[in-house]
């Protein structure tokens, strides 16, 4: 049966081009309406695939996302992995049941292409950052989620190239603030979870989702085959209500874009889980001991203090990983501890105190990006992988 599938694909693509597609690695972020469609094609084409989706199969997904009704309550990433294996057992696929914000950059480091079908602008901005840091092509698809109009867009970004537009190029400071402000629930964000709340479910019916995802997959094949790039930096707009219309527009590079347009360059992978190992390696690579470690996009709590009794507690940990027990003080009922400092940068005496600690104990995700700095020089490292958080 598999031989037959392959024979047909070879007929369609040619042996050499099919091999190119088979060797590629694709990351699909969001495994819902659009992602589910993409994964079906990727399984049939036997592309090495990583699936990232923190959600579980909800009853309302059954009608339009192609998820089996008997698997309600299971993680979507896990269900999609088994669906792909059913379609094509020899397709290498891995799933990650975490939000993209909590995934270490290194998980995506070997990807040739990122495909997204997400329902929030904030998570797209995170994907934009990762794609930019790695210099990996990214094709984003979006559908109008209100269910009122059949509108969809597909945008192709090539972050490695300085003059190319990025996803952030459409935003000035004001519109960027609107994304993070409008969708926020409380006046002050929670220091343990400053992320935005989930967006309401997409109400678009599956046929239009299939249409948009099919077109996105067509662009994805152009990217993987590397034969055509006239759509890079462009957006395809599809309006399917009434008489269908499509148009392709060029996206514009904003001269004063708020987002960096450079990639990080070479990333060094680390073997051991200890902070000490990174410090030793960085000292060798920099020629001098690093003065600071940077954790881009992360907030670390350094010290916790109680607002009632004033007592402080020594601690360095990713803010999101601080436990309820650590965040409450025994001095009086309901007394809360909050960070003395919240930072994405560890330096000086705090840095010395981290020697002997492990990254997992600090709550830093596996394969996360850590940069060592000395003066103006920076070297970027990827922490080692761990097996947790991965769908089996």
């Amino acid at each position, binding site marked *: 049966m598999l031989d037959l599938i392959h024979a047909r694909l070879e007929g369609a693509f040619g042996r050499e081009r099919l091999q190119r597609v088979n060797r590629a690695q694709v990351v699909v972020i969001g495994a819902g309406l659009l992602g589910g469609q993409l994964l079906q094609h990727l399984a049939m084409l036997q592309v090495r695939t990583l699936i990232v989706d923190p959600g579980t199969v909800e009853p309302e997904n059954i009608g339009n996302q192609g998820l089996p009704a008997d698997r309600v309550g299971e993680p979507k990433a896990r269900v999609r992995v088994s669906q792909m294996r059913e379609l094509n057992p020899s397709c290498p696929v891995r799933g990650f049941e975490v939000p993209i914000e909590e995934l270490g950059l290194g998980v995506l480091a070997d990807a040739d292409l990122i495909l997204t079908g997400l329902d929030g602008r904030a998570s797209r901005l995170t994907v934009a950052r990762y794609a930019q840091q790695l210099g990996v092509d990214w094709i984003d698809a979006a559908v109008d989620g209100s269910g009122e109009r059949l509108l969809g867009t597909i945008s192709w970004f090539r972050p490695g190239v300085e003059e190319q537009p990025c996803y952030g190029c459409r935003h000035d400071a004001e519109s960027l603030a609107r994304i993070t402000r409008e969708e*926020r629930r409380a006046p002050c964000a929670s220091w343990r979870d400053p992320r935005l709340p989930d967006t309401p479910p997409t109400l678009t019916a599956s046929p239009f989702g299939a249409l948009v995802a099919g077109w996105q997959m067509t662009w994805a094949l152009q990217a993987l085959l590397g034969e055509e790039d006239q759509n890079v930096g462009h957006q395809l707009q599809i309006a399917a209500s009434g008489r269908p219309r499509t148009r392709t527009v060029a996206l514009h590079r904003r001269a004063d874009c708020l987002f960096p347009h450079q990639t990080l360059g070479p990333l060094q992978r680390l073997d051991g889980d200890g902070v000490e190992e990174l410090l030793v390696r960085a000292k060798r690579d920099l020629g001098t001991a690093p003065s600071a470690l940077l954790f881009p996009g992360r907030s670390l709590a350094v010290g916790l203090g109680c607002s009632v009794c004033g007592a402080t507690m020594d601690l360095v940990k990713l803010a999101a990983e601080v436990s309820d027990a650590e965040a409450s003080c025994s001095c009086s009922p309901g007394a809360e501890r909050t960070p003395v400092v919240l930072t994405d940068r560890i330096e000086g005496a705090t840095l010395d105190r981290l020697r002997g600690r492990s990254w997992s104990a600090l709550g830093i995700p596996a394969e996360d990006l850590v940069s060592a700095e000395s003066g103006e020089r920076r070297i970027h490292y990827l922490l080692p992988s761990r097996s947790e958080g991965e769908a089996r």
Partner: protein
Amino acid sequence: MSDDVMQVFRRRMMSVELQAVRSESDILRLSPDPTSGSPPRVLLGIFRELQYMEPRPDGAVHAVQRPLPFSLQLPADYCNCTDGSLQMRVARILTPIAHPNVGPGGIVCLGPRFRPATRLAPLLEHLHRICSSNLFAAESPLNPYAAELYRRHAEAIKGLHSAPLWKRPVVDRVRIVSAEGERRGER
């Protein structure tokens, strides 16, 4: 290389904008921390005259008028942070203060009105309004104890009076922003 955006932003903030705000305020002392890189990433400041609520060792809180030291730091994602964490990673008060949105260690939650890429003058103005108790959010506080206090004594706290941050009234002050050659049309 990756933070060219921030290099440009910091350079401008630490030169043109810093000079402009210094000349526009009588109560502000502000200088870059030279040990924090080049251009500096951290500013050390003092509001020289301010009425604020100070916690006493016995747990009571009273209004005092004295200089208030603070620090401002510009993280690598100051211009493009996309979650709410930036609100709490920029400003710190370096002396004990009782305020719903200031943690026991001094971190300030600048709240949702603060946005990425805020220039120095509006950033200082925002911080000054918080420290002088003109701006506070008692919901989702960093200091629940102070929040309860502010709720109970809202009237007294509104009555605190601090010297204005800027020499001239707000309308004139738009010049601080236009000193950098942007937003000229606003005057």
